[in-house]
């Protein structure tokens, strides 16, 4: 694409579409060949990369990552399509950035070598930074820099953790690192270092404040990638690295993690209530929903983790769809203020029907995907900590309040003068929203298709966390010995 003349916008868009559709097609054999019965890595590709440091180009997929890979591929297509007519400035650069983002995000979900993972993790940042900073809204520069610095601080701490791990195990290969016996105190330190990166990405309370700015200022495709994929990388990081590599630390820190999750759910929801900006409200709802994801993950039981993993997909589908919807209407009105709307249901009925489905999915109505995820998470959370689950459960009330209030103000009541005569969604826009609508009901009515894919890997993960923790339970003297071991490292 870089070689194409910038005037040939159609060609550039076409290439971007072909690339993303081709990627999607490539996931079909992945889906068909995927063996649900094993927790082992599948479709492994492994090459030497930097021999002297023992770094490999090592890719693979298992139940933890397969859904995220599929979601990334789907999201990429939708993002290309939604930007087709809406991005008019620096078209070439935009689509290049978009395709780079897609590559990096799929890379993140497939990397089994920590160094490679880190490369993809950081590589995603640059095009994303540009998408927000160049094609964003009025306050885009602030939002982009904030996003970049926030995530960079987290990533640097993870890099330190990575180096410590490398020194300890002399490899970056995840499967080899998992066989290491990492002393408890070192686990704790590493957990916090990795936590810094993952928590910022998720984002967990209180390091979430980059998200509303970035999501709101980003162009539609950017918001969708951020909401659907980028913030899932944090949750994925916990599942892929933190839990299996530092099981004892994960178990020990569960109370802290559950507390932060419960706070995020309620706090994020309450903040949503007072937003006057349409897009910002949805952005803050991500804080609340991702609170559910981390609550599920740190329940450290089958229901919770499966619910969390499923909720990652659900949130990607639903919030992605809501951002697409907002983009569709923003493109017509160029305003994000809720008070500029009203009575949209009469003006754009088909659009309103789509929006109400995604609204109720976001609220977690049974029959939609949101319910399945939240139910499993609260079930798992309750088994671990009833208090955290009860507090989080109030999040579903708050969710109903802010979403329905939003819907009322935007779609109901009398038609606002400013939106009179808007055209309803066109065929392209329906085509973009329809796959997400199908997923909402598919996961809601027959989640078995998806749960069966992740089941075996999650079982293995849970066994690992608990098994290791029991076997390695430490006495006080051993813990002290480990402390000295840690100081030797320096």
């Amino acid at each position, binding site marked *: 694409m870089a070689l194409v003349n910038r005037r040939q916008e159609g060609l550039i868009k076409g290439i971007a579409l072909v690339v993303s559709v081709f990627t999607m097609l490539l996931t079909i054999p992945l889906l068909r060949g995927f063996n649900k019965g094993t927790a082992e890595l599948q479709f492994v590709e492994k090459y030497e990369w930097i021999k002297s440091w023992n770094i490999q180009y090592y890719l693979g997929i298992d139940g933890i990552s397969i859904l995220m890979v599929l979601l990334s591929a789907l999201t990429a297509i939708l993002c290309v399509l939604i930007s087709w007519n809406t991005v008019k400035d620096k078209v070439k650069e935009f689509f290049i950035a978009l395709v780079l983002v897609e590559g990096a995000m799929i890379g993140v979900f497939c990397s089994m070598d920590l160094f490679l993972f880190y490369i993809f993790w950081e590589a995603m940042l640059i095009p994303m930074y540009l998408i927000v900073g160049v094609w964003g809204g009025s306050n885009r520069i602030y939002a982009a820099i*904030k996003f970049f*610095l*926030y995530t960079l601080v987290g990533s640097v701490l993870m890099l330190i953790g990575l180096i410590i791990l490398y020194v300890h195990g002399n490899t970056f290969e995840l499967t080899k690192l998992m066989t290491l016996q990492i002393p408890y105190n070192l686990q704790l330190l590493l957990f916090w270092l990795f936590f810094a990166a993952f928590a910022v990405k998720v984002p967990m309370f*209180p390091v979430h*404040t*980059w998200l509303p700015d970035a999501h709101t200022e980003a162009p539609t495709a950017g918001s969708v990638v951020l909401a659907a994929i980028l913030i899932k990388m944090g949750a994925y990081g916990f599942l892929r690295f933190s839990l299996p590599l530092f099981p004892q630390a994960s178990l020990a820190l569960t109370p802290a993690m559950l507390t932060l999750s419960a706070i995020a759910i309620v*706090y994020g929801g*309450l*903040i949503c*209530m*007072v937003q006057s900006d349409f897009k910002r409200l949805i952005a803050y709802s991500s804080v609340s929903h991702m609170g559910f994801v981390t609550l599920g993950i740190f329940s450290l*039981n*089958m*229901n919770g983790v*499966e*619910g969390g993993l499923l909720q990652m997909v659900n949130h990607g589908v639903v919030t992605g769809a809501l951002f697409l919807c907002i983009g569709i209407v923003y493109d017509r009105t160029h305003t994000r203020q809720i008070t500029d709307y009203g*009575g949209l*249901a*009469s003006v754009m009925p088909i659009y309103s029907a789509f929006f109400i489905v995604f609204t*109720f999915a976001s609220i977690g*109505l*049974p*029959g939609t995907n949101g*319910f*399945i995820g939240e*139910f*499993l998470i*609260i*079930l798992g959370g*309750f*088994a671990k900590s*009833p*208090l955290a*689950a*009860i507090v989080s*459960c*109030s999040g*579903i*009330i708050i969710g*109903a*309040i802010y979403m*329905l*209030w939003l*819907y*009322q103000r935007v*779609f*109901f*009541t*009398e*038609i606002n003068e400013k939106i009179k005569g808007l055209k309803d969604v066109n065929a392209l826009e329906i085509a973009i929203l329809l796959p997400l609508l199908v997923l909402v009901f598919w996961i809601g*009515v*027959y*989640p*078995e298709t998806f*749960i069966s894919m992740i*089941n075996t890997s999650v079982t293995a993960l849970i066994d690992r966390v608990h098994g290791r923790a029991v076997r390695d339970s430490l006495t006080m003297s051993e813990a002290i010995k480990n402390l000295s071991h840690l100081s030797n490292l320096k």
Partner: protein
Amino acid sequence: MQETSFLYIPLLPLIAFVLNILLGKRVFKERSHWIAIAGVAASFVLALLTLKEVLNGRVVNFDLYTWLSSGDLKVSVGFLIDPLTAVMLIVVTTVSLLVHIYSIGYMHEDDGYYRFFSYLSLFTFFMLMLVMSNNFLQLYFGWEAVGLCSYFLIGFWYEKRSAAVAAKKAFVVNRFGDFGFGLGVILIFLTFGSLHYNTVFRGLASAVGQTVNILGIHTDLLTVIALLLFCGAAGKSAQLPLHVWLPDAMEGPTPVSALIHAATMVTAGVFMVARTNPIFNASPTAMTVVALVGGLTALFAATIALVQNDIKRVIAYSTVSQLGYMFMACGVGAYAAGIFHLYTHAFFKALLFLGAGSVMHAMQGQLDIQKMGGLKKHMPITFWTMFVASLSISGIPGLAGFFSKDEILFRTISSHNPAGIIVWLLGTAAALLTAFYSFRVVFLTFYGNFRGDAEVGKHLHESPNTMTLPLIVLGVGAVAAGFVGIPHVLGGHDNFAVFLSSVVGHPTGEGSVAKEWAVMILSVIISLTGIGSAYFMYIVRPDLPKKISVSFSAVHRVLFNKYYVDELYDIVIVKGFYWISNNILNKVVEKTVIEGVVNGVPSIVNWIGQRLRFLQSGIVFHYSTIMAAGLLVMALYVLFSIWKTL
């Protein structure tokens, strides 16, 4: 009947919904009702066939497919057809069918005609899924989904702000109840390892006596579960303190009020308590709570209904009150009596609403009964059917409402539960008020002189056949529906209770025949007193109500403003939470504390950087001075070290 043909009962309305919502606007248009009616009529016929099978002793428990499986959790989409389900199927499909037919006339020429019928079909589907479920999760699914339809239908005329607000309020208040229901379902799974009714009820014995630690207090596990479930029931069935949404729900079209907010959806709470009766039976505390909440709600709502002028709101508070009766019955273990009242109430209350709709139709949307009067001669069918319904709800012997209400009052007073007598008193007092407010509406609407706009008065007319036919059918129901449950003392066989006994058991408590007669006679006297005083106040001395309301103005104001519960909730919950979110969380925590730190760090770095800049002044003299100073310090350090080793 085929093995799985009952699956079509919910499926047909679903198909009707899909067809209407996709094609209604362009293809069916003003013929949309045909699809919807065909669907629900077929369901009705199948429900009758199902009832026949169940009467012959057949019970079906059938899993369609595994809905959700994760870890130990395995829940199916499954169906349980037993006597309780059969009764509910009849109630739901009958009222739904009649309301569908009625809506042809009532919704005629509305812009959203196809939309209205789509929602009705969708509601019918979810309601049927709810009552046919064989597990708690599917019950919850139907439960929330009927709430969704209720949201759509209350907000059907969404351009009206009040309708949009009422729709949201209904959903959110129900969510408060479902918060408890959801946690109850989770506790059930964690206790019994399953969500299927059969497995749970079979495992109950092992859970008796277990305690659960709630914030340091050991509480009986089954009591907690039962109360959490009841939390959901109280939300859906508009019991204290979650009753506030139902009167506002009257913003929806009147057929919706009849179907959803009188006959079917709001009774789901009673159905749920009856369905899960083994859990409630295991917890006397929970039973007492259910009975007391029911009794208090019955009286509380009846007092409000006394002074309201909006015809639909009077009936709405009446519904809240009657639902209270059903919970009274459940609370004293007489589930069959509760379901019996649910079933008779469906007829006379749906009739009252549809009658009110017919009145509104003639009055061109006027709802204020003070502006009506003398409609009797203009709309005889509406008058007579509403008159019968009012007699029925007041408990005049021989009519449906008499048998079910009398059964409830008798069961409460003869119950072993110490609260039984209190509940009976509450119920009897509410019965007096019920008779009074019901006939207040009848007299103000149909008797005397017309008090409304002269222009409206000229066009008073009876409603079209599609509307009066359902009124007549329901009128027959309001008279005759009670005959299936005539008690033994009146020479009947109490067939209804016998039919349900395999599901809900027999009520505990002993009551002599003499007591039963006494209760019956007393309640007849009371209802006649209520009707009589309404007659005296609104026909004989029409000046009296005004005088009373003036001399008891404080009481009147409190009742008229519904005890100010809405205002209280608005200040404490709605405004309170908004204030906290806006001023404390958003402005202080988010913007000042967190963002302060986030934006503060770069500022500090910047500040330090600014200071450090002075070190790189670019002047050689500065650098050499610093170098010299450094050398000096190092030299001193070396000298010091050497001196120390000496």
